[in-house]
């Protein structure tokens, strides 16, 4: 049977390839222009499919080759990666946390950050570059050789170059729009996801053709394996268990160390949930990719008459149908192009940050962003072209496995460093550099350089421990990794670890004990930040970076809090790290935004530690979770304490401001925590400063003006000290305003009681002379018939009776505020007593110009004591008259409403002073000058009306008026079957 594919036209493949890549451009443009909904672009499925970039041309072609050479050993490529993602919660999520927090976009960034060394970053970049070149070469080789196989010609190399240029153009257009490498590339991810769909579809369709076209279904495959195929399978070498495990280890490491995988997983903003979800979605994708591989291989074997020379391209031997061949070719192109795009983006960033910018730092460039963008674009093109050049250099290598193993073993040299980074805070840069240098050297000498030149291989030191017939890749892998790990451990143990490394190790460690220090910055305002940074970045870039960091932290440009400025510095460093890598970013920030080294020792930034603990709360487990639960409980206890509480560090920085204090002060804790004591808003800076300086004794009832009112606060201060104390002071603030008011009232009541006793004494003394005057007036009536004298005698008697009543009232007030006698219930005509009251007021009037009007109707009769009601209305009229201007008016009116009588005195005077409106009816409350009023009038009126089961309404000014006062008395009506209403006769 002829199983050689029917040669396709090279021009057709070129056209199809260009057409497919053009489709990617259209897809990218559609996403850029918003034709694809953002919801879809950011769907977790898109991220999962983008992670499918792992399945490169190796998965499409190399797996077939590995299946031919190692049987099910080909599965190691898929299972290794599946294992890495299955460990996402304990392996990938911690890496994601670090890369996101510190804006680290590549493996080199991560290493440079953790080991505080630009040399480590540069070394990791070089190792990645050298390791990835063979992988890039595989992609181009698979395309070129595949075209050669399909067209039975040697035009593959040229066509592959055209594809490489188009792929580079795509990467430049859609991957290097932003200078920030940590920026999200939705368009790019969507395109890579599309490529994953294309390659998955292609391999499933070809697998389906193999299963149901070449065989008659799964059972037929089994039958063929038991009969015709058995001899062929027995010839297939089987991997030793140790070699299989080494394979697994290499592909496990590749799944998160390879630059393109690291980029998609950690630099493209996958959420934690999506990453955790990928622990099963990616293995599922890889299962679907791996499933057709053996079927395709067996189908090719079943159709071949002789051993297959190029097993990698057995996919083209399943069918002669041009449609199937083209689909397989497009699938391979999709697998290769996606990988090349992401590798180019990732490597360009690493080379830029750790080689170019380290060699040539940006010194206040006018167009920093543009310069970085163009550098990156040039590097992207350079990386892809170098992949094509590598392919040209190794074109004599017939199989992909050799190239692939060279790549994967090289990248695995970073695995010991990565594990140490996560799980061993004791590792240092010396250990990592030494281990990496020696391990990489062994790898280069054993696997990489032999791709180009023949090197003599001396007897390997580890050879006695491995089987004599063990393949070279296996021996090199074991030797390089063992030496790498050994040197990393030994050198780290016996060399000094810098303080910077220790702090970065804490930040990176899975069980991190983050003890961020509270150090003051030299820059004390946001403007200082911009000015200082401009020296390194130029004015425009400095302003943009500061604004970006402020926006990310939701801070104001007027921010001065030391805590906020420290966060701003961290954010700027993280953002610059995303732009230029952690080494350059750290250099810039350390140089231009330095800390101030005061004499005071730096203390822990407790608020920052707490905010991070809050953020990681759901990830704490076991004892840590229990402890965090306790911490939250104690914090809540303090936060919800019904007494104001604040805590200051030894440097005067505010660390806590609880809810009660927020309510009392009207100042939200979030806006002041992290401030210095002296920058708190008044009166708190003075008040709390005073409390802190008199820590030994509490401050009692300190006056403070808050929310327009006077408060009295008691402050207690205690120093925080003891074992493992972080220092500082705690201040408790109690609001004693109410207590102070009650105390004042008590004093006032005591004063009133004294006055009442005094008044009772005076009244008693006045009573006798008044009785005498009344008797003399009575005698005068009998002794004369002169009408003028009689009228005078009448008036004297009326006035003495009034004095007597006042005296009686004072005595009653002094004896408990109640009238000694029970209140009579007589019919009282409001009209009549209004008129009587007016007459009395006229007698004592001092200002002729105030006019009184009585409009009370005659038919309103209330139940009560006429004399006492007259006393009330006289008091009201006198007050009204005193409040009026010379030409003022006082209006008396009455009516019935709601089954009660209302009786109103309204004036157009100056109104009631608001300062006494709350205590209008308290005794001795008056605004009149001394000697003009006792302040008892309204108090007595209130008492009398209350005894009449009535009430008093005060409106100042009355509704609809701009000045004056209206006092309305509400009194019970007298029953209808009444007798003659009370009228104050001349005897009263």
């Amino acid at each position, binding site marked *: 049977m002829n199983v050689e594919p029917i040669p396709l036209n090279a021009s057709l493949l070129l056209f199809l390839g260009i057409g497919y890549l053009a489709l990617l451009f259209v897809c990218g443009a559609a996403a850029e222009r918003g034709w694809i909904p953002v919801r879809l672009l950011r769907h977790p499925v898109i991220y999962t499919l983008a992670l499918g970039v792992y399945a490169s041309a190796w998965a499409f072609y190399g797996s077939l080759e590995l299946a031919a050479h190692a049987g*099910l050993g080909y599965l190691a490529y898929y*299972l290794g990666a*599946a294992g890495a993602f299955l460990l996402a919660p304990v392996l990938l999520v911690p890496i994601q946390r670090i890369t996101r927090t510190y804006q680290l976009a590549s493996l080199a960034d991560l290493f440079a950050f953790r080991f505080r060394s630009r040399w480590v970053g540069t070394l990791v970049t070089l190792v990645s570059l050298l390791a990835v070149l063979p992988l890039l070469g595989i992609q181009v080789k698979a395309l070129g050789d595949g075209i050669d196989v399909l067209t039975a010609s040697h035009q593959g190399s040229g066509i592959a170059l055209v594809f490489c240029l188009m792929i580079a153009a795509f990467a430049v257009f859609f991957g290097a729009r932003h200078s920030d490498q940590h920026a999200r590339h939705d368009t790019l991810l969507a395109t890579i996801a599309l490529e994953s769909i294309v390659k998955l579809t292609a391999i499933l369709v070809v697998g389906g053709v193999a299963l149901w076209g070449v065989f008659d279904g799964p059972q037929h*495959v*089994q039958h063929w*394996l038991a009969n015709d195929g058995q001899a062929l399978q027995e010839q*297939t070498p089987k991997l030793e268990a140790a070699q299989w495990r080494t394979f697994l280890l290499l592909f496990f490491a590749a799944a998160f160390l390879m630059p393109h995988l690291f980029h998609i997983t950690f630099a493209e903003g996958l959420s934690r949930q999506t990453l955790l979800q990928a622990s099963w979605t990616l293995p599922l994708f890889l299962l679907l990719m791996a499933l057709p591989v053996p079927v395709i291989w067996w189908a090719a074997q079943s159709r071949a008459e002789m051993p297959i020379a190029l097993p990698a391209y057995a996919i083209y031997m399943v069918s002669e149908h041009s449609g199937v061949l083209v689909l397989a070719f497009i699938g391979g192109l999709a697998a290769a192009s996606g990988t090349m795009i992401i590798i180019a983006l990732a490597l360009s960033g690493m080379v830029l940050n750790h080689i170019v910018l380290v060699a040539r730092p940006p010194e206040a460039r006018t167009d920093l962003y543009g310069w970085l963008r163009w550098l990156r674009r040039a590097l992207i093109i350079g990386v892809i072209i170098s992949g094509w050049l590598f392919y040209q250099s190794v074109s004599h290598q017939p199989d992909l496995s050799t190239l692939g193993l060279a790549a994967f073993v090289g990248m695995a040299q970073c695995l010991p460093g990565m594990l140490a980074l996560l799980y061993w805070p004791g590792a240092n840069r010396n250990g990592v550099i030494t281990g990496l240098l020696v391990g990489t050297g062994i790898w280069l000498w054993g696997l990489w350089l032999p791709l180009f030149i023949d090197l003599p291989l001396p007897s390997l030191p580890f050879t006695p421990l491995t089987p004599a017939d063990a393949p070279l890749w296996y021996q090199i892998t074991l030797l390089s990794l063992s030496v790498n790990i050994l040197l990393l451990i030994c050198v780290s143990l016996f060399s000094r670890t810098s303080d910077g490394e220790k702090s970065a190790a804490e930040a990176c460690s899975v069980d991190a004990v983050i003890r961020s220090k509270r150090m003051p910055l030299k820059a004390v305002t946001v403007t200082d930040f911009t000015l200082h940074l401009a020296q390194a970045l130029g004015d425009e870039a400095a302003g943009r970076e500061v604004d970006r960091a402020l926006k990310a932290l939701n801070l104001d440009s007027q921010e001065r809090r030391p805590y906020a400025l420290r966060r701003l510095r961290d954010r700027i460093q993280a953002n610059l790290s995303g732009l230029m890598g952690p080494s350059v970013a750290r250099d810039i920030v350390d140089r231009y935004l330095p800390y101030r080294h005061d004499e005071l020792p730096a203390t822990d930034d407790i608020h920052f530690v707490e905010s991070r603990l809050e953020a990681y709360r759901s990830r704490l487990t076991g004892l840590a979770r229990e402890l965090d639960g306790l911490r939250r409980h104690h914090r809540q206890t303090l936060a919800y304490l019904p007494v104001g509480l604040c805590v200051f560090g030894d440097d005067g920085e505010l660390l806590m401001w609880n809810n009660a204090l927020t309510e009392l002060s009207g100042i939200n804790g979030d806006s002041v925590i992290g401030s210095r004591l002296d920058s708190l808003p008044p009166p708190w800076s003075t008040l709390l400063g005073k409390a802190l300086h008199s820590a030994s004794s509490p401050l009692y009832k300190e006056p403070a003006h808050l929310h327009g009112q006077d408060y009295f606060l008691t402050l207690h201060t205690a120093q925080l000290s003891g074992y493992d104390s972080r220092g500082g002071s705690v201040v408790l603030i109690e609001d004693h305003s109410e207590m102070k008011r009650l105390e004042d009232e008590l004093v006032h009541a005591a004063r009133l009681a004294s006055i009442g006793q005094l008044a009772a004494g005076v009244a008693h003394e006045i009573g006798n002379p008044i009785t005498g005057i009344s008797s003399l007036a009575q005698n005068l009536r009998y002794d004369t018939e002169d009408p003028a004298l009689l009228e005078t005698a009448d008036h004297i008697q009326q006035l003495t009776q009034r004095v007597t009543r006042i005296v009686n009232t004072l005595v009653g007030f002094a004896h408990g505020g109640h009238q000694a006698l029970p209140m009579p219930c007589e019919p009282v005509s409001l009209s009549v007593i209004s008129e009587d009251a007016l007459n009395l007021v006229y007698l004592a009037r001092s200002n002729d110009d105030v006019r009184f009007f009585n409009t009370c109707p005659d038919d309103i009769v209330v139940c009560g004591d006429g004399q006492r009601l007259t006393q009330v209305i006289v008091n009201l009229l006198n007050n009204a008259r005193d409040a009026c201007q010379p030409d003022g008016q006082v209006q008396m009116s009455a009516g019935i409403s709601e089954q009660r009588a209302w009786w109103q005195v309204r004036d157009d005077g100056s109104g009631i002073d608001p300062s006494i409106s709350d205590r209008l009816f308290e005794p001795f409350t008056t605004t009149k000058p001394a000697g003009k009023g006792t302040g008892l009038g309204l108090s007595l009126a209130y008492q009398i009306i209350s005894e009449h089961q009535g009430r008093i309404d005060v409106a100042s000014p009355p509704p609809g008026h701009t000045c004056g006062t209206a006092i309305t008395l509400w009194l019970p009506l007298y029953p209808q079957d009444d007798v003659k209403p009370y009228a104050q006769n001349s005897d009263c």
Partner: protein
Amino acid sequence: MYVYRIVLFLVFGGYLLSPLLMNGWGNPDIAWYRPFLIWGSLIALTIWLEQKRKLDER
């Protein structure tokens, strides 16, 4: 944390036992798709563990 321990157990257990897979290649007594069935079962188990983890974190 217990979920993570199960995952760790699965991965390292699988790592140690996985060489047994090699015997399946071309063995007519073993269904050729059996490794994929085992793989699929592991994925189902991972989905279940993921749901359990989500409930734990709520």
